[in-house]
């Protein structure tokens, strides 16, 4: 009973701190930029023509899914444990009588609603603004965005418990390595979350007339495989992170 109370306190504490942290401001910047962009752009999208659906899908794939989503995941995913590590405040949690796995899950469950809320909220907003096409895109791409977000958040939790400068590593990974890897020829790209996400979006969009994006080496795979891969990445990352966090001695805290 008292453990549950402590756990809920911890979730609430982490959630509140993340919500009012600089991360939120930082993330709102690109989201707001995209909102303004859509606001200006939607006059071109009206009428629901094939071209405007295509254009909107491309925006979602190349600006939203490959920039805004990972940025949100970095801002909250690594900040929840990584930020506490950098500020050394993690120490205050580790010396409390709360088992470490619970600390980890508290952090994770505080992060998830924030990251999902922001990403999904932004996604919903853009689709609303885009009118008819938006409604279609929303129903088509929702699973892809959802899977991508949780996969990124879990992966970055793994970064946060394992590496010291996790935020920087996660940023470099999300903004540079993934983009490069995801666009490489052959099967190298299969390590990138971004690639699976785009595959899912592509598979969902093609029946509605989405044209193959012009990236040269983009060879999409089926939606179910991609979803399974993303779910797999999520679970494995979480599990490994949990084990690392349970075993790890954080010597850099004091």
């Amino acid at each position, binding site marked *: 009973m008292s453990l549950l*109370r402590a756990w809920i306190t911890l979730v609430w504490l982490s959630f509140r701190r993340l919500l009012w942290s600089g991360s939120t401001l930082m993330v709102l910047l690109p989201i707001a930029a995209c909102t303004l962009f859509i606001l200006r752009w939607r006059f071109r999208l009206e009428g629901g023509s094939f071209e405007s659906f295509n254009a909107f899908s491309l925006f979602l794939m190349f600006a939203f899914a490959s920039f805004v989503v990972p940025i949100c995941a970095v801002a909250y995913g690594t900040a929840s444990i990584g930020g506490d590590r950098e500020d050394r*405040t993690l120490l205050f949690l580790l010396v*409390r009588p709360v088992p470490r796995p619970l600390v980890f899950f508290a952090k994770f469950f505080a992060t998830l609603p924030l990251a999902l809320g922001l990403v999904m909220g932004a996604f919903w907003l853009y689709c609303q603004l885009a009118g008819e096409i938006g409604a279609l895109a929303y129903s088509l791409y929702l699973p892809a965005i959802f899977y991508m977000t949780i996969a990124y958040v879990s992966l970055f939790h793994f970064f946060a418990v394992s590496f010291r400068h996790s935020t920087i590593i996660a940023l470099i990974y999300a903004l540079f390595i993934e983009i490069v890897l995801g666009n490489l020829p052959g099967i190298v790209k299969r390590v990138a979350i971004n690639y699976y996400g785009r595959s899912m979006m592509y598979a969902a969009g093609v029946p509605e007339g989405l044209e193959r994006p012009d990236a040269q080496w983009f060879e999409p795979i089926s939606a179910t495989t991609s979803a399974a891969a993303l779910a797999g990445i999520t679970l494995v990352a979480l599990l490994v992170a949990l084990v690392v966090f349970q075993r790890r001695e954080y*010597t850099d805290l004091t």
Partner: protein
Amino acid sequence: MFLTFDHVTKFYGPVIGVNNVSCRIGPGITGLFGANGAGKSTLMKLASGQLRPSQGTVAVGDRRAWSTEAKRHFGYSPDINSFYEEMTGREFIYVMARLYGLAKADARARTEEVLREVGMIDRAGRRLAGCSHGMRQRVKLGQALINDPPILLLDEPLSGIDPGGRREISRLLLEQGEKGKTILISSHILVETENLADSVLIIARGRIVASGTLVEIRALLEDRPLTVEIVSDDARQLAALLVAEPDVRGIELRPDSLLIRTRNPGRFFSRFNDVVASNQVSVVKLQTLDGGADAVFNYLQQGPR
């Protein structure tokens, strides 16, 4: 409740942090002294369950320090200066109380109690970001006291505090010690903890090199060389009397004092007392120049020179 180290060794990769340390720390205030890198903070981290020993066991009461249950029995004040800066001192302590599973009302009552104990009650509404070093030290102490633990582990609780704050915190620690708590204080500065601690542990090169009360340790070191300063109106006469003593290794006559080097202070002091008493020499000052805690410490750190 006791804090027990049983043949504890800790490696960081190839680096050895503490080397086969065994000791049992009981009620009262124990000072832990050591140079930077001697293993002091490793010992603290082992005791507070942040590290697992590579060999041996660290026990809080009868539980391993690494375990979750052990954490109910100690309070830990770390040697870091970071908090949730956006909170006030009160909020911070309240949140920490909640992490022990206290219900809201209990946590609130306990927070006020602790704030009063550490003397922060009137300033607890200030955001931690704007707090001075001394106030932050108090908040740290407060969060360690929150569940009224039988064991307190305090890493450098007095560093960087102004003279006024230092006096108040020392008083608080003495009170806690009198309640029968086991308190382990690590410190850089011996002079200020020397009056606080009932017993001391001195750690050097990863090993505990001395333990006991300072008086005991000093007594154990009776045979080491020492310099004694004597101020007397009859310095020359005294020098003449002492030069024949076998334990006196050297005498230096200074304008205002007499310096005597001896190899066996125990015997020397005894003889000196006799000489002064029987000759009725007026001695104004008698002081060992390197007899303070600092000197004991240096001696143990470096070995005989």
